[in-house]
């Protein structure tokens, strides 16, 4: 029992990872393997006048050189868009093609023009330098500000706009704004981030000409989805002729959801040259070509009545989706963002308009939190500004506007229905953890030391456990949102779980084993976890959107239900009782009112050695599969409070304290949950203080290495105080909600609000992300200059 649900058991997978024994795609080698290297555009926007590959083809070790025309000749399609939305005028999202290798035009620095395949990586790189590309340069469209007026990026796409979408009641919202006692206006920018998974992307494709089938090892968060897209949409081969294996994957954060052109080129060329083809990104390529995250500008208007209650919210957003539409690029700023704008507040009317723009920069897609951090950031910044403007305490202003506990299920003005929640206990607990009430004393103590001390609150909600398929489909999703699991019980009673979810750092092997251990009463060590191989596991949708446990874990629970149900029948036979009278607890079957008992292991053995077994009515064997499609999203919520000290001489922000109180529903492994929260907060702090993908006006990425792109390090972070409350999810068997993204969602506004709070005595009321020392210093300088006027 101590290893089951609710126990903080150590992670099974850690020994392998901590001792460097993980087996990643690049660790796998196949006989006769060759190496692909891509010739990439070094300009942001250009027509390609000509490509000369002659010298490269003749260089030492080169096996093949291919360009866009070769791809076109073979009729191979590019990556597809997995989600589209209607425009306000009823027309459809513009979905421009994304060729595997450039077809006459390049659209960002890093766009692939040619692939050189050689016997060694170094030979492929050397030969790549011999490929001559003659460009006719076009003006770059490097940022959101210039997107709509910039040069046309995709033929026939007006104002470089992919879509122009809306949600909510515009008339009612504008009316609320007009009749409001107060309208709080704010414009915020969600800075552009580069995911930086520790393991760079990699692919190894092999063609078997005897069976006419392919095997792809790749860095994917969802190998089945990759297989479906590659086989059915890009290569038009039978899906069964492609096996996709995502072995150990070193972090994804969203960036490994999508099918990228490199994997497809490896598959395609592995058949053309009939040799296994491997490609692994170096760090520069990761910076340039992994899908980036966020990059929004949001204009917010919040309407309040005389009693400081919110009566309406309008948000107008433009977001940068980059040069091509990545798979879920459209979903992120729309249905994962617009639908979250109610936050945990009772807002009678909301309207949002989102314009998705193209620029000559890397594609932008889901990144830890995907849409919800953007919604939370703009909302919590606005709540903070509103509290300041009406002169209320930031915590109490939130409390006043929280959806009351007795209002659940709560229908928001932006489509979602929250099943359950209780927001005040999180706020109260976080305030207690950080000793909110004594803050002013700490502020004055700090000011004696010449420091400005501030405290910032962020109360968030997120929708995770993606997704009810019917809802996703109705909103433009082109995939299902269910998950699968198989439970194979061995004759000796050990168990293997085959999951459609994919673990790339989340600790599924441990968490999923705990569910089995709890339900079947067997030790954790007797459970194996298999994932990431389309030939081994049932079809699954993979891992993103904090869905693994809330959807995949529930699928496992349902498969276990089936195992228990069948086991009871077997046990009933063994104990000569009726199945209805059999009870199962702690790994033992008993018959009510008797001392008969049989162990789970005996039942398993009987299932496979069915000498004494009801074969007339029951199949032998003990293996069950379940597919689970959730009824609703799950809604984790909570409050984070950050406390900072600002050094006015340098603008350096020190995070001095952090309290997080989250409601994730039931916890399977509290230690893993805490780890996820820590990681999420670290990423959010990275966004708020350090990280920024910076393109210059020519579309060159200036932050393409760790010398210039600043990731959070351990010594940038305080020691986090993390606690949980629990209102179990009402619509799944485990009562779980998901915790993977919450930290990254909650933390940026908590931190920025704290900095503004610290500097508010100077009259500072705005702060952009990342709040670098210079940004903060400049805000102080400007405020002092204003005060001096």
């Amino acid at each position, binding site marked *: 029992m101590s290893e089951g649900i609710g126990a903080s058991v150590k992670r099974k997978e850690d020994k392998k990872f901590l001792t460097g024994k993980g087996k990643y795609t690049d660790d796998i080698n196949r006989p006769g393997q060759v190496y692909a290297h891509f010739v990439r555009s070094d300009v942001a926007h250009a027509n390609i006048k000509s490509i000369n590959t002659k010298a490269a083809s003749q260089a030492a070790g080169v096996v093949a050189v291919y360009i866009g025309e070769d791809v076109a000749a073979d009729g191979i399609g590019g990556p597809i868009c997995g989600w589209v939305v209607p425009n306000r005028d009823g027309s459809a999202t513009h979905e421009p093609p994304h060729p595997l290798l450039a077809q006459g035009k390049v659209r960002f620095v890093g766009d692939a023009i040619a692939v050189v395949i050689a016997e060694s990586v*170094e030979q492929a790189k050397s030969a790549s330098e011999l490929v001559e590309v003659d460009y006719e340069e076009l003006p770059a469209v490097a940022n959101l500000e210039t997107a709509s007026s910039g040069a046309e990026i995709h033929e026939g796409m007006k104002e470089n706009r992919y879509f122009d979408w809306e949600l909510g009641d515009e008339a009612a919202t504008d009316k609320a704004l007009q009749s409001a006692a107060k309208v709080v206006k704010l414009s915020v920018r969600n800075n552009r981030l580069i995911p930086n998974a520790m393991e760079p992307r990699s692919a190894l494709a092999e063609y078997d000409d005897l069976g006419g089938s392919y095997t792809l090892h790749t860095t994917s968060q969802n190998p089945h989805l990759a297989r479906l897209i590659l086989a059915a949409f890009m290569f038009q081969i039978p899906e069964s002729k492609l096996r996709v294996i995502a072995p150990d994957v070193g972090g994804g954060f969203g960036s490994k959801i999508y099918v990228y052109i490199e994997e497809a080129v490896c598959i395609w060329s592995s058949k053309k040259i009939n040799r296994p083809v491997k490609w692994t990104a170096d760090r520069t390529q990761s910076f340039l070509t992994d899908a980036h995250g966020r990059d929004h500008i949001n204009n917010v208007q919040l309407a309040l009545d005389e009693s400081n209650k919110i009566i309406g919210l309008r948000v107008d957003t433009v977001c940068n989706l980059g040069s091509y539409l990545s798979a879920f690029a459209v979903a992120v700023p729309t249905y994962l963002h617009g639908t979250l704008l109610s936050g945990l507040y009772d807002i009678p009317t909301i309207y949002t308009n989102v314009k998705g723009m193209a620029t000559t920069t890397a594609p932008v897609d889901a990144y830890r939190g995907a849409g919800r951090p953007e919604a939370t950031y703009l909302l919590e910044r606005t709540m903070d500004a509103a509290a300041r403007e009406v002169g209320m305490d930031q915590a109490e202003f939130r409390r006043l506007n929280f959806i009351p506990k007795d209002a659940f299920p709560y229908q928001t003005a932006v489509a979602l229905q929250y099943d359950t929640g209780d927001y005040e206990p999180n706020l109260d607990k976080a305030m207690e953890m950080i000793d909110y009430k004594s803050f002013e004393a700490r502020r004055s103590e700090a000011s004696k030391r010449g420091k400005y001390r501030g405290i910032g609150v962020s109360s968030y909600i997120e929708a995770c456990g993606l997704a009810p398929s019917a809802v996703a489909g109705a909103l433009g999703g082109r995939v299902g949102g269910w998950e699968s699991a198989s439970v194979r019980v061995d004759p000796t009673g050990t168990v293997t779980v085959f999951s459609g979810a994919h673990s790339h750092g989340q600790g599924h092997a441990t968490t999923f084993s705990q569910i089995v251990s709890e339900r079947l009463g067997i030790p954790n060590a007797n459970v194996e976890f298999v994932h990431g191989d389309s030939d081994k596991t049932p079809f699954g949708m993979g891992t993103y959107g904090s869905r693994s446990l809330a959807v995949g874990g529930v699928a496992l629970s349902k498969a276990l239900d089936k195992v228990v149900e069948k086991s009871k029948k077997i046990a009933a036979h063994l104990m000569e009782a009726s199945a209805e009278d059999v009870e199962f607890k702690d790994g033992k079957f008993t018959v009510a009112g008797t001392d008969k008992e049989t162990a789970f292991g005996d039942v398993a053995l009987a299932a496979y050695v069915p000498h004494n077994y009801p074969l007339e009515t029951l199949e032998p064997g003990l293996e069950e599969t379940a597919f689970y499609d959730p009824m609703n999203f799950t809604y984790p919520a909570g409050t984070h409070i950050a406390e900072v000290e600002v050094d006015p001489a340098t603008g350096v922000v020190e995070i001095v304290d952090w309290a997080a109180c989250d409601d994730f529903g039931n916890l399977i492994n509290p230690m893993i949950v805490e780890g996820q929260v820590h990681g999420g907060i670290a990423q959010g702090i990275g966004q708020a203080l350090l990280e920024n993908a910076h393109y210059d006006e020519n579309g060159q990425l200036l*932050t393409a290495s*760790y*010398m*210039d792109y600043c990731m959070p390090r351990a010594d940038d972070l305080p020691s986090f105080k993390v606690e949980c409350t629990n209102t179990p999810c009402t619509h799944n068997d485990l009562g779980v909600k998901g915790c993977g993204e919450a930290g990254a969602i909650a933390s940026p506004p908590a931190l920025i609000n704290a900095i503004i709070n610290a500097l508010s005595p100077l009259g500072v009321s705005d702060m952009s992300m990342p709040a670098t020392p*210079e940004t903060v210093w400049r805000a102080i300088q400007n405020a002092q200059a204003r005060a001096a006027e």
Partner: protein
Amino acid sequence: MYSTKIVKAENSSAAVQAIGSSKEGKILAGGMTLIPTLKQRLANPDCLIDISSCGLEGVEDKGSSVRIGAMTKHAAVAESSSVAKAIPALADLAGGIGDRQVRNRGTLGGSVANNDPAACYPSAVMALDGTVHTNKRDISADDFFKGMFETALEEDEVIESVSFKKPEKACYMKFPNPASRYAMVGVFVAKFSDGVRVAVTGAGEEGVFRHSDLESALSSNFSEEAVSGVEVSSDGLMSDIHASADYRANLIGEMTKRAVSS
């Protein structure tokens, strides 16, 4: 990286000879800068001359100065008791370079020869009125650094050691670039009986430089107030995505104050 060959030189004259007999030979010290450059194919030397066996390591107290071998690693300088005794600020500086791995490979000679505008050591060489000893000659600090990544070194010249004058008092204050953790601004203040030297790294468009206004202010009054009285100009300072010239100017003043008051 492009393929190349490595020769191990037994002493500095052998190293110089090896450079002479190669087309574009490069000295390899700790490799912390050179190897990444090669990996990114930004350089294509036909030969690397490894000088780790040339006997260029070690710290020697020369009375009024400390002489440190070119191949002495940052970690060794940071941990050296003679450096700690003679010029604690220099040990501190070395201990604050990069990370543990970098400090255990990177060398004084490599840092000085490379003259990265954001490197720490050049400021110490300047502020401590250092002398760069090569196989050919002795070069004073003021003549050695010639602008970003430029030095007085000739093609076939190897740094053998660097001498630093012992100050009465010195301090290095580094404001790290949050990403690279090189100096965004680093100020080395050294007080000698005949005046104060202030060298600034990380900020100048031409690399490390001495700040004459701060030097004269501090030479007459070694105090924070003296620093406050100096208007640090942003002329000639770098502006990049990490910091503008006027923010760097602010940091120069601030780091100088902290160095003086420490």
